[in-house]
């Protein structure tokens, strides 16, 4: 499955179910388009989280559970199971029952079928362990043969070899009969076994999600009917990499209308913000909790996110072709009259500065024609201020007071990533030269740029 290029794979890589069934559930997670499907996932995570004290014991049991679906299918096709397969079933029933008892009274989705009868078939000696042995109790003749076998093996009587071989043969024959008998008794329970395996996979996945929520501090988002709002949104991948170098991620908060444009200088984090919104939405629509202190966002049928050069490069397109391609996808959604979230990072940037802004203006207008869609754009172009009916944001950017007072710090120290709403008559930031200087570009070169700037203004 191909996901949006927004870092969702990173999140998935942190989800770690311990059973093969749980891993399969993880791979089967899809983009959910209905509120109630997302709600169901939320509810499951909350339920498991409520039983916080049980999570450790649930995990220690889950870790012991093998994938026995191959054996179940052998059972279904009427095969006679061998000792290893019978052990697998017994061990599975054992751990499934343990899990059932730890869960106690629980909601329907995690209710495991009762496998105690399956277990008791395979535990004739009432040993209560997962070990499996074709016990003497399973066939009356078995005890007799084995007793004699042991006697002969202990005493090694003369002329014993032949009768020993005969006893071994008889023992094997009876054992085979017992296996056939057990397989027949177990066959009616194959559906219960299968159901247990499926349910265990679901529990395993939710336990893994709850652990992820704790590890990354994810919170349950609210499903809104229209508004789009979040507080203190962070990008977990970037936050982790920043914290390695002793820095921290500055969280974003925003409330977006149906048509929003974010402006701001270079290095202020417009792209990061857009990427994180794409991630937020993707996580939300897979039923996950989200990396924001609070989020209230609607469910969409599709997300179109255009992040820029790298993406097109990987798709074998020029940056411009990539942009056009994504625009086409977005237009299709507008026409289809379904809900779409459109996130375009600096639309029109890959063409000339005369036509580029025109792309921006047209996109802003056209993409918001459909009431069911929401558009968030970032831009470098001053024309962005003139987009009709758009809600405008700016990322604060350079803190000039800090620049004046402290010299020689890393650039991130001088940048304020806060997002603030502005009016359309606001001043458009021009800080490329200052930022280039802070990044250490040669002084003479900077002076040349400034000279060029003055000339073009005159």
């Amino acid at each position, binding site marked *: 499955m191909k996901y949006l290029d927004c870092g969702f794979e990173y999140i998935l890589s942190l989800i770690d179910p311990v059973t093969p069934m749980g891993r399969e559930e993880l791979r089967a997670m899809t983009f959910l388009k209905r509120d109630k499907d997302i709600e169901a996932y939320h509810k499951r995570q909350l339920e498991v989280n409520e039983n916080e004290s049980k999570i450790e014991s649930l995990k220690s049991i889950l870790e012991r559970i093998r994938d026995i679906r191959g054996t179940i299918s052998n059972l279904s096709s009427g095969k006679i199971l061998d000792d*290893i397969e019978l052990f697998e079933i017994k061990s599975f029933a054992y751990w499934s029952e343990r899990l059932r008892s730890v869960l106690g009274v629980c909601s329907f989705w995690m209710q495991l079928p009762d496998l105690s009868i399956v277990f008791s078939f395979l535990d004739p000696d009432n040993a209560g362990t997962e*070990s*499996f*042995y074709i016990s003497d109790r399973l066939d009356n003749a078995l005890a007799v043969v*084995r007793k004699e076998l*042991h006697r002969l*093996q202990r005493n090694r009587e003369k002329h014993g070899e032949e009768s020993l071989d005969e006893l*071994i043969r008889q023992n094997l024959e009876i054992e085979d009969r017992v296996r056939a008998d057990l397989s027949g008794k177990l066959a009616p329970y194959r559906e219960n076994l299968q159901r247990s395996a499926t349910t265990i996979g679901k529990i395993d996945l939710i336990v893994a999600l709850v652990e992820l929520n704790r590890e990354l501090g994810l919170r349950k988002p609210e499903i809104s009917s229209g508004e789009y709002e979040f507080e203190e949104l962070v990008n977990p991948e970037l936050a982790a990499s920043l914290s390695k170098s002793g820095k921290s991620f500055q969280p974003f908060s925003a409330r977006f209308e149906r048509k929003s444009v974010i402006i701001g200088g270079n290095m202020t984090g417009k792209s990061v913000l857009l990427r994180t919104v794409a991630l937020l939405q993707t996580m939300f629509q897979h039923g996950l909790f989200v990396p924001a202190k609070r989020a209230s966002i609607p469910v969409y049928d599709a997300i179109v996110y255009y992040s820029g050069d790298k993406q097109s490069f990987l798709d074998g397109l020029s940056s411009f072709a990539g942009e056009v391609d994504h625009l086409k996808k977005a237009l299709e959604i507008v026409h289809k009259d379904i809900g779409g979230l459109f996130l375009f990072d600096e639309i029109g940037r890959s063409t000339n500065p005369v036509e580029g802004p025109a792309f921006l203006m047209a996109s802003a207008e056209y993409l918001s024609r459909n009431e069911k869609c929401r558009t968030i754009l970032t831009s470098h172009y001053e024309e962005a201020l003139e987009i009709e009916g758009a809600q405008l944001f700016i990322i604060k950017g350079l803190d000039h007071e800090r620049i004046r007072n402290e010299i020689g710090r890393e650039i991130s120290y001088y940048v304020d990533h806060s997002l603030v709403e502005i009016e359309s008559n606001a001043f458009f930031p021009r800080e490329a030269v200052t930022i280039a200087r802070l990044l250490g570009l040669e002084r003479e070169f900077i002076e040349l740029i400034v000279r060029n700037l003055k000339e073009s203004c005159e």
Partner: protein
Amino acid sequence: MKRRIRISDLAEGIEVISVIGLEKNTGKTVVLNQMLKEFREKGTTVGVTSTGLEGEKRDQVYLNEKPEITVSRGTYFVTSERDFRHRSFPATVIDLRDYRSPLGRMVFARAEADGKVIISGPSILVYLSEAVNTMRSYGCEKILIDGSTSRMSPGTPLVSDGVVLATGAALSMNLNELCRKTSFVVRLLSLPGTEPELHKRIASLGTGLWLEKDGVFERLCHSPLTAKSLKHELAGRTIYINGSLTSSVLLALAEKNTRIILKDFSRVFFDEISLAKYERVGGRLEVLHPAHLIAVTVNPLAPSGFKIQSEKLIKSLEDKVDVPVLDVLEETSN
């Protein structure tokens, strides 16, 4: 009549014992079976496994049937699914683990009657060690490991407390040659361990060839195999090799009083002559993990049918090595 030495008596106080063979048909399996038998007689709870797949059931050259291990009621064993299915006796399956072996998962089991089974245990050291620990948790007092038919049984000293070395006419039909080859391996198995202080400093170093300089180890190259023309002053210095040591490298390092430390004896890929040259200039050889050699066993019978006179063989070997030497066929004949 001289009282026969029992191999189980020699293994007193040693919990995990590896049996390694110098060549196929040197009687490794006979030794294992003998030990299993003796421990059973003593009422000791035994576990048995092996290091990895050792090949076909049939010896390809001589078509001798590869002997199966004879376990008795109550013996614990760890073998592959495939070989477990081919056993001839009732057994309890206790655990099933996926060690990604080509022969399938590993079955942890207990024999419920006497019988035969081919043992093909985990081929990776960490899993072998896990299997040993698991059998210990089942209550095994002795754990036997069927080592590979080669002295290059990596990590043997790491998982086992003692080693039994099986040699015999299958290695060479020439008595002198046989004794020479065997005593060389015995020497390697007896390489002294490095002192604890140095061990601690070395243990975490990665692969390659390391030279000690002013108390600090410096990596000269990543692959010890290519370290032939070192420009460094080596005389009197300590060198740690995490990897294999070949004859040519050993000779390249042969300078006055050098001290080479290897991980364990299984990393040795040099011959006797090179070792002699290295030692002649005052070189010393040590290992991080020394092995404890319990005994040498001999099989005077070669698979071709040729037989070396047993007493003479034992006598010749006893002159060269200072551990007990036993004839495996004599052991089993009574």
